[in-house]
């Protein structure tokens, strides 16, 4: 029988939740990296036992961790597992946490500033890795979306990282500015049918696409309207919270923007709003059913000033028509006095026959629906605030 492994990043460590395909009984391991902020963990589709994790701290900076045994043991890729860290002779350098912006004269020179909160230009300063996206085909290749916004790639299992500087360098970089959570590159989508295509999103710059494996980039924000920026239909500057992609139809994208839920049928060339009858179209997460490209999920949040569900009722909304027509899903979710948030990377789906949907909250709950959203139950209730949730479907 198939199994699922849920990778949970929290404010104070990582947790791994495992179950068989029934998704009724769960084993919980953790906290891994206790006390550290774990922004994101994600497994390699090419080797499910290979998991990458972003471990970060305001005190000690950024660490990249890797597991090659499904999360049982971890190491920094710059230091091979089992090798004594005490031996000065031959010990490789711990470079796995080294993210250095491209400052070369050829490509880096024009990339030195972005717009700051007060409208002035500000130099790029690395802060942390928000999102790790392993290659679909090579376990040693992984992408990292970082704050201040940039995209890095490692081709050696996370040991060293190089910036794909064509993103910051395509021309609009000086117009990017931080959102309330910082200027983060939080979404990385790899196209399973087009190896050269990468879609990323930045808060608050918008969505961008490369069709040549990250060498060159263009903004893909046509159709977005953001009343909170000087030109609501600007080429860049939109606060995109998250984008989800249908694995079956990769050109079909769904976006949860600061306000507005959007869809694109052409890989982001144009977007149309599909908020429809949602009670509020502010939110952070959005995801797509594993087998039904037109079935999508969001968790509406009251407003940009009040980051919790309307009326204290935690409700997932599902659309089976690719947006516009939404139904509320409440069975098993708290319907009174619930004032948690669901952060942008904290929803995921498995690929079992009956698609499972998962999300984590800032209150420390991780909920699972084993029936595509019809019913929900908590896997765990009392973790630290959940930053991210990813799911691996295992044989």
């Amino acid at each position, binding site marked *: 029988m198939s199994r699922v492994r849920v990778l949970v990043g929290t404010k104070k460590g990582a947790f791994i939740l495992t179950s068989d395909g029934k998704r009724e009984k769960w084993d919980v391991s953790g906290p891994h990296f206790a*006390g550290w902020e774990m922004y994101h963990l994600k497994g390699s589709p090419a080797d499910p036992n290979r998991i990458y994790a972003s471990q970060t701290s305001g*005190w000690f*900076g*950024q660490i990249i961790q890797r597991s090659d045994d499904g999360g049982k043991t971890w190491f*920094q890729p710059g*230091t091979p597992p089992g090798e004594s*860290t*005490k031996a000065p002779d031959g*010990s490789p350098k711990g470079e796995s946490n080294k993210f250095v912006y491209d400052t070369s004269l050829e490509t880096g020179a024009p990339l030195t500033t972005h717009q700051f909160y007060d409208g002035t230009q500000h130099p790029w300063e690395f802060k942390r890795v928000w999102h790790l996206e392993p290659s679909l085909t090579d376990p040693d290749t992984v992408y990292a979306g970082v704050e201040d916004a940039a995209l890095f790639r490692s081709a050696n299992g996370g040991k060293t990282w190089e910036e794909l500087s064509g993103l910051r360098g395509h021309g609009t970089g000086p117009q990017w500015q931080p959102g309330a959570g910082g200027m983060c590159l939080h979404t990385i989508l790899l196209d399973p049918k087009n190896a050269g295509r990468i879609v990323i999103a930045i808060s608050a710059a918008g969505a961008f696409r490369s069709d040549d494996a990250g060498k060159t980039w263009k903004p893909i924000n046509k159709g977005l309207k953001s009343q909170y920026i000087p030109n609501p239909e600007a080429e860049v500057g939109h606060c995109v919270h998250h984008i989800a992609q249908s694995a079956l139809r990769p050109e079909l994208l769904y976006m949860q923007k600061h306000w507005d839920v959007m869809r694109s049928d052409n890989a982001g060339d144009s977007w149309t709003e599909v908020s429809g009858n949602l009670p509020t179209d502010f939110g952070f997460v959005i995801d797509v059913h594993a087998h039904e490209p037109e079935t999508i999920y969001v968790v509406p949040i009251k407003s940009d000033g009040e980051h919790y569900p309307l009326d204290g009722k935690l409700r997932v909304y599902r659309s089976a028509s690719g947006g516009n027509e939404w139904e509320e899903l409440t069975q098993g979710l708290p319907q009174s006095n619930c004032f948690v948030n669901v952060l942008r990377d904290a929803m995921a789906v498995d690929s079992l026959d009956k698609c499972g949907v998962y999300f984590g909250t800032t209150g420390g709950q991780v909920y699972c629906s084993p029936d595509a959203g019809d019913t929900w139950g908590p896997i765990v209730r009392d973790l630290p605030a959940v930053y991210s949730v990813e799911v691996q479907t295992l044989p």
Partner: protein
Amino acid sequence: MVRVELPAHLRALAHVKGEVTVEVSGPVSILSVLDALEAKYPMLEGTIRTHGTRQRRPFLRFFACAEDCSLDPPEKPLPEEVASGKEPLLVVGAIAGG
């Protein structure tokens, strides 16, 4: 042999318990001690000093013989008690967060 006391999170990262010791050739300073520390424990690179600038991370401070030496020039010799191993160099995480 120079003794260094690390914050708990960095001890966990380096897989050590208690104080660590490093061999320092030449003058014993913040710079030379941290260079030796990172050579012995490469996983600590970037956690005390930022990559690139090699500046002290803002929420960490250095103490020697009960004196805050965080703002001293990195090349400035540390007190003889630290250089001789009688006293440890303390790497201290700021208490912050409210």
